[in-house]
């Protein structure tokens, strides 16, 4: 009976600001880290690997066109990035000296829009930002995820880890419980993957569109009936950094195809 009295007591302590993240949370052993694509059906995986059939390449192609097109007030991306941006996406999110904060790939691209092209930032999830992000991400296809969480990125990484390990929503579930503690099990028609971001932006059959990692995170938060964060929210960027560090070494797959 003691246990129940204890549980009630804890419930009565007003703990509004900082819900506790799990202590001593388990981690997936490095050799067990696998991409979400291995949990897909053979057909979906084939679709991803076929550059002509994979619908994500529509966005990559649009992105390539935008990359070469000069905007009204500035130079085209390609003017300054003639050699391309091969391998760059695999290192994002990353701390940016000029911005003084951690930027994800979308944020980094928008930083060039604003500071180098004198154009307004593209809106999150706009066709333009999705397309150019997919084009840049695709130049890292097959490269190992390799983000750096040392120095000024450390605190952001930790904030992302805390978000990942905190229970939330009406269902009171954490990302950790689904993606670290129960991956491989069936959640209705889905097999739970380890929740990596290496395939994003990804084409999701359910969306019938390409979408950013933040769109996927919002879906997961909505799934536990939590209030999702806004697109581009610094805390989602922190989660993105944590996810990337957790999957360091995994091959980049954007544009991946997902269920």
């Amino acid at each position: 009976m003691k246990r129940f009295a204890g549980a009630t007591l804890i419930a009565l302590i007003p703990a509004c600001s900082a819900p506790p993240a799990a202590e001593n949370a388990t981690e997936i052993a490095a050799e067990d880290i696998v991409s979400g694509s291995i949990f897909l059906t053979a057909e979906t995986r084939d679709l991803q690997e076929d550059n002509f059939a994979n619908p994500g390449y529509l966005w990559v192609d649009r992105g390539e066109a935008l990359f070469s097109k000069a905007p009204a007030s500035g130079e085209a991306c390609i003017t300054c990035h003639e050699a391309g941006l091969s391998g760059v996406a695999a290192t994002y999110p990353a701390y940016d000296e000029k911005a003084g904060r951690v930027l994800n790939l979308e944020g980094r691209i928008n930083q060039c829009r604003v500071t180098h092209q004198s154009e307004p930032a593209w809106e999150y999830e706009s066709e333009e930002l999705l397309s150019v992000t997919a084009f840049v991400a695709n130049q890292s296809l097959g490269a190992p995820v390799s983000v750096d969480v040392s120095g000024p990125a450390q605190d952001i990484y930790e904030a992302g880890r805390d978000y990942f390990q905190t229970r939330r929503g009406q269902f009171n579930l954490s990302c950790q419980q689904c993606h670290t503690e129960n991956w491989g099990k069936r959640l209705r028609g889905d097999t739970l993957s380890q929740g990596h971001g290496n395939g994003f932006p990804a084409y999701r059959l359910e969306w019938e569109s390409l979408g950013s990692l933040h769109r996927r995170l919002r879906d997961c938060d909505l799934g536990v009936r939590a209030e999702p964060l806004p697109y581009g929210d610094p805390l989602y960027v922190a989660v993105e950094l944590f996810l990337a560090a957790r999957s360091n070494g995994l091959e980049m797959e954007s544009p991946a195809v997902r269920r």
Partner: protein
Amino acid sequence: MSRVGILAVLIISACGAQEAPLIRANTILGDAITQPLTETAGDTIRGEQLFVSRNEGHCILCHQVDGLDAEFQGDVGPDLTLVGDRLSAGQLRLRIADYQLVQPGALMPSYYRIHDLHQVGEAYSGESVLSAQQVEDIVAYLVERRASGDDA
């Protein structure tokens, strides 16, 4: 109400930390809530519908019951085909209402609870996933999942 007052209420209702528990400690005996939560007895047929339906209980997201007319049942939680042989109505009631009172850290969501939750979607704030009557309906359905059950 003062502006500060309104703000305080907003903050409190947004996190649910100060909501009183729906289940009072003195109704819990061992690992069971022996008394039904409502006067109206649970309805087995409603219970089965709630167990399956996506917008209500949707327990098959994580559980399987053999013979149910539902594709793709989950296996994150234990198979409940014969759960009535393992657990009494009172034990089922507590586990559905708030499993974390049986086992802190349990993954099983708490279906009749509003306290101490975080970042709850606005549309669901201050509400439990299931009503007391719905919990009773599911208890009635699950307690009959027995090898020798009358409607097995």
